[in-house]
């Protein structure tokens, strides 16, 4: 054996250790410029939103720092307080740039929390339905079908009509809107995985159901669910913005991007576009960035590409 190695070192180099799946995904993800741009954009937005209190010129919700004299200044104008407002100010003299970063923070938080809980809920229900089958499966899937036959905006609207506006309520509404999508996907993938050899093997080893469910089925169901999770965050953020815009989402003490746009809407007719347009562009960039990343993830995590 040693002879072979010493004789032909090339042979060793041509057969590298099998690449770990994680690295393959990262390598393939990086090969798309568009996706990398999306990721860069997304990270910039997330970091900027996270650091908002430290990098914004003013705290837009500290009333002491606002001056009514600065209200509705056009982008680039210098305010009464000597601050220049590159993106203009809103009706209360708030710096739009600061307001947008704070708004992004709220939008991101709501989207992340709602989607994560919906993912966990849908994942659990979907896998339980797939694994146990029978009655449980029928009940869960009927519920999912019923749910998915109505547009999300309608379901959310009705829930909020009953619950009233508020941070907790909108998160709850988003969870209720989204769990079914995750449940259906989780069930479908778990079903196709359930009949694979490794589950049979685990069963024949006498492993417990929970062990098989969470130790074996779960990791294999994750890739498609992660793609869905990414894309659903974007739609959760868009839905939250829409609901807040309609005045049934977040209260005015939690000014998300939707509320900012809504506040600016009244001024659009008089040509003071910036109050609505800039938060909208921020929202658009955020959604596009998430979708670019999600699309690429879908391509590289596609089970057909995994050997």
């Amino acid at each position: 054996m040693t002879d072979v190695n010493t004789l032909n070192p090339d042979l060793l180099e041509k057969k590298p250790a099998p690449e770990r799946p994680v690295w393959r995904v990262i390598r393939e993800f990086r090969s798309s410029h568009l996706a990398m741009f999306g990721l860069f954009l997304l990270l910039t937005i997330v970091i900027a939103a996270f650091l908002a209190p430290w990098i914004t010129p003013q705290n837009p919700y500290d009333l002491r720092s606002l001056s009514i004299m600065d209200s509705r200044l056009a982008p680039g104008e210098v305010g009464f307080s000597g601050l220049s407002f590159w993106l203009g100010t809103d009706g209360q003299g708030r710096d739009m740039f600061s307001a947008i970063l704070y708004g992004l923070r709220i939008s991101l938080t709501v989207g992340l929390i709602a989607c994560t809980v919906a993912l966990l809920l849908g994942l659990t229900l979907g896998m339980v339905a797939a694994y146990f089958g029978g009655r449980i499966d029928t009940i869960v899937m009927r519920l999912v079908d019923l749910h998915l036959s109505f547009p999300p905006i309608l379901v959310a609207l009705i829930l909020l009509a009953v619950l009233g506006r508020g941070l907790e309520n909108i998160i709850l509404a988003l969870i209720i809107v989204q769990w079914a999508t995750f449940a259906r996907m989780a069930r479908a993938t778990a079903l196709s995985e359930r009949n694979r050899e490794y589950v049979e093997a685990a069963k024949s080893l006498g492993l417990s159901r929970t062990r098989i469910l969470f130790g074996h089925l779960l990791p294999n169901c994750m890739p498609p669910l992660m793609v869905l999770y990414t894309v659903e965050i974007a739609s959760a953020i868009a839905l939250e913005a829409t609901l807040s815009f309609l005045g049934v989402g977040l209260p005015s003490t939690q000014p998300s991007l939707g509320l900012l746009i809504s506040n600016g809407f009244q001024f659009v007719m008089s040509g003071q576009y910036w109050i609505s347009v800039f938060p909208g562009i921020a929202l658009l960039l955020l959604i596009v960035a998430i979708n670019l990343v999600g699309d690429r993830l879908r391509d590289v995590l596609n089970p057909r590409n995994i050997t």
Partner: protein
Amino acid sequence: MVYIIRRLMQAVFLALVMSFLVFAGIFSVGDPVAILIDPEATQAERVRLVAQLGLDRPFHEQYFIFLGNVLQGDFGNSFVYNRPALELILERMPATLELAFASIVIAVVLGIPLGVYAGLRHGSVGSKTIMAGSILGFSVPNFWQAIMLILIFAVILGWLPVSGRGEVGQFMGIHSSLFTLNGLKHMALPAINLAIGHLALVIRLARSGTREVRAQDYIRFARAKGLSEKRIVMVHLLRNILIPIVTLVGMSFGGLIAFAVVTESIFAWPGMGKLIIDSIHLLDRPVVVAYLIVIVMIFIILNLLVDLLYSLIDPRIRLDEVRQ
């Protein structure tokens, strides 16, 4: 026939389930007495009102009374307008339906040719432009698109009005803004706004359908028969890609009515969507409940219609039905 009856029974069952859910949701939250009664009313008056409204009865009895009333078309009176809630909704329905209808027409009339073009000329600049536009149409939230439309076409260009329904004309007994120029102008922006999302979807479907179908042997055989390119595209290709598109259009009609909530609020379009948003803000519960039931019914009927339409377009489905 068996198929249709089975579908109808499913629909009735679904309607019952939904009515129960809506009622249970409303039942569990809030106290209608507190809204209806004068705060200074005596305890006796209160008890009388509770009995009058049937709120002292057990849940299931209340539900059956509610169901009975609903079946008779009685959803109670609006707190705000003091008129039957159903009447209010039905009054607003034509405006919403005409908006949704106009949007579907826009989405289909523009979407199919653009999608087919993008599919036939895959890789060309035109195709790429169309696809980029459709991705944008997907990503931009509907309400912000509306604001941009207003900004561009009303504020900057000053071409189109932005609020209200405009003049309503009458044609063959139907009242609609579609029949007057002023009405059409008022409808243009809201209809485009409502259409954009679905336009993007129709484009995608038409494109992927075209790419799939045009590689099929029957298209090649159609060419070998000496048919003109026009006939191949308009008959052989279109008939095949129409199946998923019709499903989408049918399904999305419900979605359009739901999304009309956003469009109607922004453009002050006097339809059901604006009514529901106003009612939510004013806590006008009977109207909210009535809207819900009406919407659920619309959805159920639409799903049924789509299934039937589907079997008209795709002959293979009817065969499956015979086999069953």
